[in-house]
């Protein structure tokens, strides 16, 4: 969409105006996230820039909120809970999701073509207003840790299902037939032909899955009456006690950047494997 040399002044103005507009929207998207990073190094217990910080005085900055995060038992316990629950939830949801996706991508699903769609439908759960209420009700049914786990796991397997189903449905079935003609067993086929493209999408499904599990686990802590990282942030924010929240937020932003970078690398690798030039 480069500007042609014969563009009129109006078109020129619009071309640049439109880009400025988009720049402002990108600014709106990024600014709030960017602004908390320097603030997390605040030497004072404020949520705002002090004059020493604005003057770039080294005394205005400190790592004390990070120190607090790593030493305060409230936070370390919450972190430990998050770090144990999120991978568990991811593994379980990936396992369930992958199996179901392979199942529903086969051409003769008992429930008909809607098998996958129906399963995916509970992604509605993710968007449902009743979700938090539901989780609360889960609490009555499930035990302590069990309840917490099922609480976290619930909203995410649809992501895995959708991504994996999408690959497997788009996956060229003639490859499988070719394999069968060649005398391979189903197991070999799953290993060879299907698993590789699926493996990539497992990555795609997994990453949002683990991210979302940390994200949703705050609501699960309601259900499990245990504290974890997001829950600790939530209460901290409500009571406005300490800027340690900003340090945690910064760490979480860094975590998402790392995950995002991983995804981008996976995507590029995949493109290279398929041989489609960028």
């Amino acid at each position, binding site marked *: 969409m480069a500007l042609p040399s014969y563009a009129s002044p109006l078109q020129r103005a619009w071309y640049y105006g439109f880009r400025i507009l988009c720049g402002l929207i990108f600014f709106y998207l990024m600014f709030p996230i960017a*602004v*908390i990073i320097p603030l997390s190094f605040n030497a004072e217990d404020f949520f705002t820039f002090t004059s020493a910080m604005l003057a770039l005085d080294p005394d205005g900055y400190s790592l004390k909120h990070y120190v607090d995060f790593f030493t305060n038992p409230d936070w370390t316990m919450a972190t430990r809970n998050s770090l144990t629950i999120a991978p568990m939830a991811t593994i379980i949801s990936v396992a369930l999701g992958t199996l*179901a996706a392979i*199942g529903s991508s086969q051409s003769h699903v008992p429930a008909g073509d809607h098998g996958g*769609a129906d399963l995916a439908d509970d992604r509605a759960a993710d968007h449902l207003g009743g979700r938090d209420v539901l989780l609360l009700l889960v609490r009555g049914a499930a035990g302590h840790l069990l309840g917490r786990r099922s609480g976290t796991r619930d909203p995410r397997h649809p992501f895995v299902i959708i991504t994996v189903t999408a690959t497997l449905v788009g996956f060229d079935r003639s490859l499988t037939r070719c394999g069968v003609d060649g005398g391979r067993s189903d197991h070999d086929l799953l290993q060879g032909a299907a698993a590789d493209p699926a493996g990539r999408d497992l990555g795609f499904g997994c990453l*949002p899955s683990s991210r979302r599990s940390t994200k949703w686990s705050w609501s699960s802590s309601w259900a499990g009456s245990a504290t974890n990282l997001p829950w600790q942030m*939530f209460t901290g*924010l409500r009571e406005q006690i300490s800027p340690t929240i900003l340090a945690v937020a910064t760490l979480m932003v860094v975590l998402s950047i790392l995950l995002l970078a991983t995804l981008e690398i996976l995507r590029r690798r995949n493109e290279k494997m398929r041989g489609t030039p960028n």
Partner: protein
Amino acid sequence: MTSTAADSTTQELSGGALKRSLARALRRQKIRALMLTAPLLVFIVVGFIMPIGSMLFRSIDNRVVDDIMPRTVAALADWDVDSTELPSEEVFTALVADLQIAAEDRTALLLARRMNFETAGFTTMVRRAQRAVGDWDVATDGPFRERMIDVHDGWGSLETWRAFKSYSSHYTIGYYLAAVDRTMVTGHIEPLPDDRSIHLMLFWRTAWMSGLICFMTLLLGYPVAFLLANVKERYANLLLIMVLLPFWTSLLVRTSAWKVLLQEQGVINQILVWIGLVADDNRLTMINNKFGVIVAMTHILLPFMILPLYSVMKTIPPSYVRAAKSLGANDWTAFWRVYFPQSVPGIGAGAILVFIMAVGYYITPELVGGPSGMFISNRIAHQWTVSGNWGLVGALGTLLLVAVLVLYWVYDRVVGIDNVKLG
């Protein structure tokens, strides 16, 4: 002739065998597909369908009254709510008998709590009554009507008995009535007084604010998606990261960022004071009100609008717009008549996705909303944590669920659930 007949028999035979073996293979495939899906189905039923069922059930379950006061409820069967006379002595005798058992089982206050959700004052009445009836003898100490009224005036008021009778059935629509600001304490469905009506207002506020947020995300998301779809893929991927980073960042991080930005001593007010737009003693109030919720939620939900729009716009062939222009359309006409209609599915997908998510938001309104920016979900949480009114929580949750399911159904009909690509 004979050879033809023999041929057709063989054909039939082999045709039948083939059919059978095909059917067998198909069945095996079906079973395999089912077995693979089974763990997830079980999980969904246990972790998702059952809690919903339990919520639906709680919203109508009212057995507590009849369980604790079975004789009184039975004796009240003949009494009419419109009657201007108190229930008969028989009812009061049953009441005393029930209260004696309930006081012993320590269940009387459960009943009082249930009735207190509908009309105030029951707790005191029941507490006093259960203390008094302890040493009465049901068989000999009657009549009880006057004695009960002596214990607490409330037992002699028609309102008490009307409310009790209205809410004594096993299953009740009472919680749903409360969820839409109605009551039947008089035996007839009536609106609650204005100072106690909050749910309809909150439902309405949730709806219009979600609609506005949805519109704002569309307004901001469309240009960005258009840019992403029309620049070189190299740049598009880089720009997409700027969309995906907020999308991937925890909701709480983004909400806390807005809290930092918007508060009275926050970054935006600081900047405005510094450049002299706002006086230091006259800082803008941007948090704990509707403005804060709209700004923060628009930011948080913007990626959910951009991504479906982008995935639709990427499939629109640029040659159509070029063709329109070469046929004499100006830029605006080419966009409005050719490009825009093709991007409508993306708008539909994004708008319904954002709206559905916004309707159920809890965290952001809780943290930046304050009382005037409260959503219905905050009220549900309040009913849960403060009042402990599970039935009302169930009813409110069910209403929200039904509203969202209707939207979801529309979404599926209009755009199809599989057409959305997120990240």
